[in-house]
């Protein structure tokens, strides 16, 4: 883009700055829109799962509901509770926002479509998302509310604990690709599923599962939504927040969902890679990438509306007793596996294809079971009494 600006007669330096600002604005707007739209998507999907409609009035199929909600929240009074630590209370939401939106620097939108392909991209990704915990803890502490405090404490304990398995889980793809750059990790994977990192060996599958469970916990999604468990802690750390600051918390939460999906896709599921003869179509790459992200997001939402939540001690047990040792095993196993098979690519390919076939088999079994269950229980949802006139 800066080349275009230089050709318009600008000096190279201002041209670079201006093009950077424009790119950042585009990505920022995209993130805000995606975060907003995801709130509507989640509500519609939950409505579908709960035999109700969900928001369907504002815009086609309720797709503009997030704008209406946003306007409503911005117009609300910005309350700060009595006895709150005013400074911390005011800045807390922005820490969450920066923690999530900071990832957009290295966030891949497809193969080769990203703001900056840092050579320490993945490391930067993990580090910047750790900022979210500061925001949550600040919000919990400064609200002068005991429920908020408990929520903040839970969040701090949870996110810090789960960052370790997540980081360990990411070590396996790093080991496989030998790079920390997001572009590099995507580049070593191919378009076909057996070329994705997730299917490379049993250990990569294991690290994928650990990473996925850990990221659910880091993003405060059910079954790990303890920091804002509405039936226990009222609303957790954002109990006292209203108006715009509340909207910021919400936006960062749903943007985080997208970031989760994006990172999983890029690191484990082959990003937006296309077969060679299509490699020139960047638009198609973005499309493929977004499709994969959507599937991940749907699974996360599906889990949220199906599962109950853990208790705090069970949550800690899971992280320290199972996920962390599992991540170590996966890391060591992958290292040894790569050492043994480094000169025999045929074995590597066979194992990868085999892993993929096992996955397909499980998927088919799952769908068959769902079909059987649905056939066995042909239950009409309509009320048996609704078609009877009242006597």
């Amino acid at each position, binding site marked *: 883009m800066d080349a275009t600006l230089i050709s318009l007669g600008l000096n190279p330096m201002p041209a670079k700055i201006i093009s950077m600002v424009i790119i950042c604005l585009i990505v920022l707007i995209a993130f805000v829109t995606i975060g907003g739209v995801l709130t509507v998507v989640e509500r519609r999907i939950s409505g579908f799962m709960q035999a109700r409609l969900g928001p369907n009035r504002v815009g086609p199929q309720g797709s503009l509901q997030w704008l209406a909600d946003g306007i409503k929240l911005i117009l609300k009074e910005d309350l700060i509770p009595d006895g709150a630590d005013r400074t911390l209370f005011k800045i807390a939401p922005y820490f969450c926002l920066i923690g999530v939106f900071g990832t957009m620097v290295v966030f891949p939108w497809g193969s080769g479509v990203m703001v900056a392909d840092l050579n320490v991209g993945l490391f930067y990704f993990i580090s910047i998302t750790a900022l979210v915990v500061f925001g949550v803890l600040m919000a919990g502490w400064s609200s002068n509310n005991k429920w908020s405090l408990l929520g903040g404490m839970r969040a701090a304990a949870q996110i810090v604990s789960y960052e370790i398995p997540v980081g360990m889980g990411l070590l396996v793809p790093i080991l496989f690709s030998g790079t920390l750059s997001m572009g590099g990790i995507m580049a070593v994977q191919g378009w076909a599923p057996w070329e994705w990192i997730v299917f490379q060996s049993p250990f990569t599958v294991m690290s994928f599962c650990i990473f996925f469970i850990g990221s659910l916990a880091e993003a405060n999604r059910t079954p790990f939504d303890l920091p804002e468990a509405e*039936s226990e802690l009222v609303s957790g750390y954002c109990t006292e927040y209203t108006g715009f600051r509340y909207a910021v918390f919400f936006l960062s939460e749903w943007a985080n969902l997208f970031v989760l999906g994006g990172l999983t896709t890029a690191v484990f599921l082959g990003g937006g890679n296309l077969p060679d003869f299509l490699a020139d179509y960047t638009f198609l790459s973005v499309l493929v990438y977004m499709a994969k992200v959507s599937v991940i997001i749907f699974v996360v939402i599906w889990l949220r509306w*199906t599962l109950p939540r853990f208790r705090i001690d069970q949550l800690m047990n899971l992280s320290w007793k199972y996920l962390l040792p599992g991540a170590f095993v996966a890391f060591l196993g992958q290292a040894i596996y790569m050492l043994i098979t480094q000169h025999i690519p045929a074995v590597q390919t066979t194992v990868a294809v085999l892993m993929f076939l096992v996955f397909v088999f499980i998927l088919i079994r799952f769908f068959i079971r769902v079909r059987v269950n649905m056939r066995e229980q042909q239950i009409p949802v309509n009320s048996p009494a609704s078609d009877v006139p009242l006597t």
Partner: protein
Amino acid sequence: MTSALKTEYLTINMGPQHPSTHGVIRFILKTDGEIIHECDPDVGYLHRGIEKLAESITWQGFVPYTDRVDYVCAMNSNLAYCMAVEKLMGMDSEIPKRAEYIRVIVSEMNRISSHAVAIGAADMDMGAFTPFIHFLREREHINDLFEMICGARLTYNYICIGGVNADVSPTFLSKTAEFLDHFEPIVEQINRLISYNQIFIKRFADVAIVPPKMAIDYNLVGPNLRGSGVKFDIRKDKPYSIYPEVDFNVPIGTGRAGTLGDCYDRYMVRVEEINESIKIIRQCLKQIPDGETKAIVKSSIKPPKGHIYFRTETPRGDTGYFIVSDGKTSPARLKIRTGSFTGMSIIPEIARGVFIADLVAIIGSLDVVAPELDR
């Protein structure tokens, strides 16, 4: 060396406005971080003085008030009061058979809807929102059926002294049978969705164990008592109405997932009671005779001097009406004994040393309903 750090307990106010206290109940918690050291239930936020009101209104006029004693199962409250008054008047043998059958059908239907709400609310407290919505959808069907017979969906005023207020149509009976066929698989479906879920079992099993002796000492009733393994159901052990003529089991806790008398046992007893209620209604629909639905009762009754204590099995357990009559047009004294109150009184005992999240599970599994608690 003693620690120089002074620690103190954190006092938290849970309620009266808290999402999981099911109405307006307040707990004053003293916690050490998230672990409850002391739990002090504070009741009375929904006290409406219904017992005192009874002393200034007519005998029949009090029936709508019994709806409000426990609006989650209004039919059962109606039934308990009306049967107590009939017994006091000595006319309990004059009630037409058809009326008795209708009473049992509607009160068992209401037991299903009440248990559905109890189970759904317990699921929701555990963070699973979907089963609650599905149960509420099924409850709407029961409300539709009740609307057919009495026009109301929540507070029915349908059972009256001497029988029921209106006969049911054949459509109601066939629609009820249809509903049962529709509902029975759904119970199993929701069980598969949530009751057998490992996370859910982990949250409920071995939490807040109430051994049988403790349950009896604290006078737990209904599903809470049976969850502790005590096989006592007034419908079986002190039968009233037509319950001796129908065949059903009394599910009890067996330590399904952990220890006998834990939250999961209490929860599963409710699930199994739904199936038993379905069984009872099916038999009643088969056996229901034709005939009158209301005995001849004067518009202003004056039961003879005396007193009566009559117990029935409502979804929340043993509901007893103690009524003193001095031969006038309104009761001299009326006292309602409810299951929620004893359920509430055991909470300080079993909520010691558990997590705040477990307290939510305890409230959900004891099925405490605020209006019934305070009257």
